[in-house]
């Protein structure tokens, strides 16, 4: 029987396939107690996805990884909801001339493995982070320190492995010498990149990245990849932000919709951002658990000043385009109240945010038309807005274009790029046709962060290639100021100048639209839109 023989082969293949999957299931059999939804009592769960990279403070800047890093590590200082400095591991950070800074640590702090946190823990960590050989994404944050160029040359191998600007005075005191005056340097220290590292790190950075040992309010417990990261409250923690709960579970969800369903059914405590489909009804669903709060982030339209459309454009045209956008209506309808209309180049949560006393950000079709005509109009009467179509931007870009077209008759078309990497590549290579969608979240709550990093001629994120010598000079002067207040004031002047030159059209500030279930309480949001996990209490 031919058929019977063939049947034997088929049966054989099926057995092989079955046993292969059986292997698979026995593998995951022991994974069962590692990665399921069982949550220890007193723990809080939140939808924070898989960190992109290993958990090393200076190699993390995306939000998932930052959440975990912030739970595990504490740097010298932090900010309260108003953006004011709160000292955490440092007792004080002081300076006389904005150039040499003295850090005093609080005594008696320990890493989770019992090692003492000393001046050397900070200095060694910062030297390691800054070294080009270690490929740390945030290494440029250390660029203000004397000796940075020795460990991080633009090309070639480092000449030294220590920055000469860092000196330990004793176990709890060290000094930081900067290349130039940076009056707001202490604000930069609030970024999680400045965290210290214990000695075990240097033995095996790779293993450490999977199982970090920090000095923060939580201790690392386990990381089941793509499913869950669990941290437990550190009972010996001495900082002001001691955990009010017993631990945190960071759970990875494939979609925000799935996470939302789990909040509704009580399988998840906190959701950071409700998806667009659930936005219209989330307040009704969650009641008191709904969170809606603005934070320090801005979205703008950035003209490419090298493009055919906006090369040597009269700023009046850009002001006109800005006035042709009906921000109020668009934020309320298309964006479902997830944004607040912008009234300046900086969000209200940062130091130095000011009322510019202008109508450039107010919808006014007649004046918009007038300004555009006065400024000589948009070349070819048409421009493009580049955006990445995987980020939910299509709807508002279409609405903005519609608004501009109706108000001024200038043709505006969306230029979608399939995903974020493609979008970034076009920006980096100066291939933006006329404008792109720009976004910026505060690194530290000072107006400088929203001005210098975006509109200085040499700023890395200045992808519109805006360049104005006078503005650069004003910024340089602001950096020379001897106190933070003076620097902030100087940058306020820069902002007024920006309004005249229009290096970007600010659209709106972000809001967080999240929520929590009824098993947790006291869910607050910090200035850059992260949930203050240490304060969350369980019922």
């Amino acid at each position: 029987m031919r058929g019977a023989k063939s049947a034997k082969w088929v049966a054989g293949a099926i057995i092989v396939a079955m046993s292969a999957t059986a292997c698979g299931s026995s593998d995951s059999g022991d994974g069962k107690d590692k990665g399921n939804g069982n949550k220890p009592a007193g723990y809080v769960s939140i939808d924070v996805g898989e960190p992109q990279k290993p958990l090393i403070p200076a190699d993390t800047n995306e939000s998932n990884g930052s959440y975990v890093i912030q739970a595990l590590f504490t740097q010298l200082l932090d900010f309260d909801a108003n953006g004011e400095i709160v000292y955490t591991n440092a007792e004080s950070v002081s300076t006389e001339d904005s150039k040499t800074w003295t850090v005093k640590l609080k005594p008696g702090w320990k890493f989770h493995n019992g090692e003492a946190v000393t001046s050397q823990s900070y200095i060694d960590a910062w030297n390691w982070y800054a070294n080009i050989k270690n490929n740390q994404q945030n290494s440029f944050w250390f660029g203000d320190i004397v000796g940075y160029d020795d460990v991080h040359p633009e090309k070639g191998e480092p000449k030294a492995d220590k920055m000469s600007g860092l000196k330990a005075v004793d176990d709890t005191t060290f000094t930081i010498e900067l290349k130039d005056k940076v009056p707001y340097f202490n604000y930069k220290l609030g970024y999680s990149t400045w965290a210290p590292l214990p000695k075990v790190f240097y033995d095996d950075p790779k293993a450490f990245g999977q199982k970090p040992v920090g000095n923060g309010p939580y201790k690392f417990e386990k990381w089941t990849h793509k499913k869950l990261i669990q941290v437990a409250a550190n009972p010996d923690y001495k900082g002001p932000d001691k955990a009010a709960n017993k631990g945190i579970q960071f759970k990875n969800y494939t979609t925000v919709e799935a996470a939302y369903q789990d909040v509704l059914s009580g399988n998840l405590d906190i959701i950071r951002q409700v998806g667009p489909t659930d936005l219209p009804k989330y307040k009704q669903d969650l009641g008191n658990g709904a969170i809606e709060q603005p934070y320090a982030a801005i979205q703008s339209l950035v003209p490419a000043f090298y493009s055919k459309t906006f090369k040597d454009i009269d700023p009046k045209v850009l002001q006109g385009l800005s006035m042709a956008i009906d921000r109020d209506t668009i934020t309320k309808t298309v964006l479902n109240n997830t944004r607040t209309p912008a009234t300046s180049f900086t969000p209200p949560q940062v130091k130095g945010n000011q009322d510019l006393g202008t109508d450039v950000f107010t919808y006014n079709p007649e004046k918009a038309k007038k300004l555009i005509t006065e400024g000589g109009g948009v070349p070819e009467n048409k421009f493009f807005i580049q955006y990445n179509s995987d980020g939910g931007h299509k709807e508002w870009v279409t609405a903005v274009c519609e608004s501009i077209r109706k108000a001024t008759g200038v043709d505006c078309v969306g230029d979608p790029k399939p995903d974020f990497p493609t979008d970034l590549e076009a920006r980096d290579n100066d291939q933006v046709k006329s404008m792109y969608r720009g976004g910026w979240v505060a690194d530290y709550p000072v107006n400088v962060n929203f001005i210098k990093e975006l509109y200085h001629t040499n700023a890395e994120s200045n992808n519109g290639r805006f360049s104005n010598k006078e503005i650069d000079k004003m910024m340089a002067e602001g950096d020379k100021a001897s106190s933070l207040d003076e620097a902030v004031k100087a940058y306020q002047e820069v902002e007024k100048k920006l309004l005249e030159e229009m290096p970007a059209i600010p659209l709106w500030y972000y809001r967080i639209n999240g929520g929590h279930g009824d098993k947790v309480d006291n869910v607050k949001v910090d200035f850059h839109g992260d949930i203050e996990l240490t304060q969350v209490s369980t019922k």
Partner: protein
Amino acid sequence: MGRYVARRLLQMIPVFIGSTFLIFAMMFALPGDPVRALMGEQAYDPAVVAHIRADLGLDQPLWQQYATYLWHLVQGDFGTEIASKREISEIIAQAFPVTIRLTLFAFTFTVLVGISLGVIAGLRPDSVRDRGLLTLTLVLISMPSFVLGYLMQYLFAFQWGITTPTVQDSNNFGDLFLPAVVLGSLSLAYVARLTRTSMAENLRADYMRTAVAKGLPRRRIVGVHLMRNSLIPVVTFLGTDIGNLMTGAIVTEGIFNVQGVGKTIFDALTRREGSTVVGIASLIVLVFLLTSLLVDLLYAVLDPRIRYA
């Protein structure tokens, strides 16, 4: 028979190499650099990007990168991910069992329910139950899987409280029930229709009349004579469908929070993690190749006239 199988298995090698190269070249051609994309929209240092790219060999030409990749692959090394620095074999070992389990579950559901429905309807063409089946399958075919997914989620989890709305543990068969049913329902409709049509057709065939005339019991006529011949188109469909079930589950995986292959490959693609995409895609190519071989062998089981030398 053995030689035939051996030949087919050998033929898979060039197909496998060719397809990995194609996928590799496509990933290479895509705009967007994985290392640059890691830096996101915030400030970054181009020197670090250049340094990482040099360390990973991303600055080399395509052929050299591919040669290195293939050389590592034949040694059983799938490479490491650029961002997470995890072994890709580890990522595959985590995602595949989940997907295979989901697929098998959905597939069994499709086969059992689909063929039974098809047989029930096909034996009495144009009867009320036949019409009923046609209507039901029409609904399933025209309903997008996310509609069905959300509907099931709403009914089973929120209205009746039988299950949790999402999968809490991707390794638990009970949890996978809903997503498997949603995933399998489209194929189920096709399988039911194919079975029904081919049964109805074969009912009128000469050999059926002969079998009836011989006075064979009805169970044997339907179960052996009719079924075996009618299943050939169904088996062809099912063979290709296994691959589709494995790769096409992104929507269903998303709704029910299943951490399977679909989501993994989609994420890797948007982050330009070339080695992850090529690794997973190659394995899926292998699955396709093996199931098509299996289908060819099944033909011989079902229809004794088909022989392989």
